[in-house]
């Protein structure tokens, strides 16, 4: 009898725990959706059929991105989320390696990234590094720049 009570309690805890998680959106889910749009508004020089999104550091974001982005196709390119630092179209990391002229880097602008997520009043915004933008080989749509906070890093 005791064991049954325990099992029922566990199931209840579980259902309740699921209920409390409903309807709220974590910052990582929104970041992943932003990355989707960043890809949409960016043109790379290469013609690879795959767009590699590298998320080598933030494990949580990597998993969330995988869930919401993988398999989606933008402009004929299939999105793949990977755990590495090289051969990237998009790189989300705190530090940026050298030779990233043709990589859409997302991270601290201070460290040389092109884009940076900013949390302002519980809402997610992003900043663009204007100085870096001029040197990159990427073409970024002005629509994206209109929504961005402009910084010079």
């Amino acid at each position, binding site marked *: 009898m005791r064991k049954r009570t325990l099992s029922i309690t566990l199931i209840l805890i579980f259902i309740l725990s699921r209920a409390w998680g409903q309807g709220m959106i974590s910052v990582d889910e929104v970041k992943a959706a932003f990355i989707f*749009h960043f890809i949409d508004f960016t043109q790379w020089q290469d013609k690879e059929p795959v767009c590699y999104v590298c998320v080598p550091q933030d494990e949580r974001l990597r998993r969330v991105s995988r869930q919401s982005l993988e398999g989606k196709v933008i402009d004929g390119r299939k999105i793949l989320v990977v755990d590495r630092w090289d051969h990237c179209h998009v790189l989300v990391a705190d530090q940026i390696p050298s030779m990233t002229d043709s990589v859409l880097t997302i991270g601290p602008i201070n460290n040389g990234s092109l884009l940076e997520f900013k949390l302002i009043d519980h809402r997610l915004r992003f900043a663009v590094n204007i100085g870096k933008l001029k040197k990159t080989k990427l073409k970024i749509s002005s629509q994206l720049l209109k929504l961005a906070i402009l910084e010079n890093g």
Partner: protein
Amino acid sequence: MKTIGIPLAVFACLFLLGGPDALAQPDLTSLSMEELMNIKVYSAAKKPEAIWNTPAAITVITPQDIRRSGATDLPDLLRMVPGIRVEQVNAHSWDISIRGFNGSIFANKLLVLIDGRSVYTPLYGGVFWELQDVVLEDIERIEIIRGPGGTLWGANAVNGVINIITKKPKDTQGWLISGGGGSDERGFTTLRYGGKADDWQYRIYSKYDNYGKGFSTTGSNTDNWDITQGGFRAQKDKLTLQGDYYQSNIDSTVSNTLYAPPYLENTHSTDLARGGNFLADYREDDWSFKTYWDVTDLQLHDLNERRDQVDMEYNRIVSLSARQDITWGLTYHLNVEQESNTNYLIIRKPPHPDQVFSFFSQDELRSWDDKWKLTIGSKFEHNIYTGFEFEPNVRLLYHINEQNEVWAAASRAVRTPSRLEESGILTAATTTPVFSRLEGNGDLKAEKLRAIELGYRNRLSENISSDLALFSDYYDDLSIVDLGDPVTEHTQGFSVITYPYDNGAQGEVHGAEISTDIRIKEWWKLTAYYSYIKMSLKMKPGYTDAGLGRSLDSATPMNSSYMRSSFDLPRGFKFDITFRYTSSFYSGTIPSDPEVDFNLSKEIKGWRVAISGWNLIDSHHKEAVPSLTSTQVWRAWYIKITRHF
């Protein structure tokens, strides 16, 4: 079977419930950027540090801790962790336990892993600490988890897990040469080289340590020993291969059992212990596979055993949603043992191939704001001695804010009988023709623990953090030698009194561990802990209380404390001074023990020179309950020179 039916049903429900929810997640990529900017989001808690965000009592030893402690072996290193009891029995033996049950027979509830390879020996349910000679400079971190870890690590992770993780080859490139010597550890040297070949990064190493004998009042003891070890670790992308080989010569004091006068003969013997292992590990983002083969070959005066262990593990993590991950895994473990009997010890062959199959699953749920984290899971395993076992746990963590968090856990863990308890026949002699025999019991059940834990952590600023853990452990079916009901046989002019092993004891253990790290000044850091433990074990009804419960209780000191002051002095000198204290135990047989250690070091252009002193208060002291083989621990010092390039 009946007992595991219900937990299985619970898990079936978890999986079913997990499914539809994943589909119900809104696809945010269909929203425009403007819409995304209007969504109110909740920032996840800061990037989890190793300790923060873990609903368990965990301590991490970092490379910096290792360097600054001045320790030259693992046991001395572990002295800095709250809730651990390290007892040096003689120059080459240590008993280490977490949350009670110390002493040579009872330090059997702790699991120790080196890069995921278990070094717990099923032979007696402990660890041959003298044979775990890891290059301390190559350790990335040591995670010590106090409390049950059965859900993830399986049977025998009853009251703690020690996870020793070595550095990746890319972090150990170049040469490391170190050497030194001193009063107790007479000489030691390490040579390591890390390089690259094609896409592989690797390191190879060899090391040698030579230890002098412990203190005894007669001075006639021989427990000096040495160990030579070598190995490698290589990595190519996601694949890691590693292996080690060691050989140790151990001088021992031996009491031989003779079935003719004088029956008991004390002599000295030089024992040989050697072994090796090979491990392969492949790791993707969401799954990993690991396999290893480990050989221990002991040629001891009273035991000859070669044990081969083969292990295969597959683990997978599945994200059902951004707030729910399910981890599951399958493990197969095979033990092959070859023993040759001695007068002292006979081990009966296992009835079937000694293998363990296990499955675990754990569900981790996070609330929308990451303030709550719930993990719920269980291990289910089958072994040939006690059949099916299950080890569930539920853990809940709540971030009060960026500075404070609390957690609670309820778990069940089991320890399966060691080979000695299950199948050993150990015959001890006295100087008369009367022998005492401990006989293994094939019907022994697993020991069970139900534990409740509560914890609180804070990091008031970058400079102050502290950690509190409270626990109540309820043990049942503890395996003991039943002293109450011996069988006496008289044959060929001598008597043999046989005491069987049985699941004869039960009881409670309560305790608290508090630790704190304070950076007082840029150049001065203080680390301190205090731990308290109260054991109350007793015989189960039907077993005679021959005082065993009480002696078990008293074998663990109730209070221990530790304080280390780390100073960064001018001219690049680093100075650490440690004060350790344990209260008296074993009814005063081991007096209260204050100890002081220090380490002074300086780094100049790739050279590092360190001078260390250990156990400075007395010239020698008793750490373990006295026995024929125990000796005392010396006051010790050594000097060590290290060169990196």
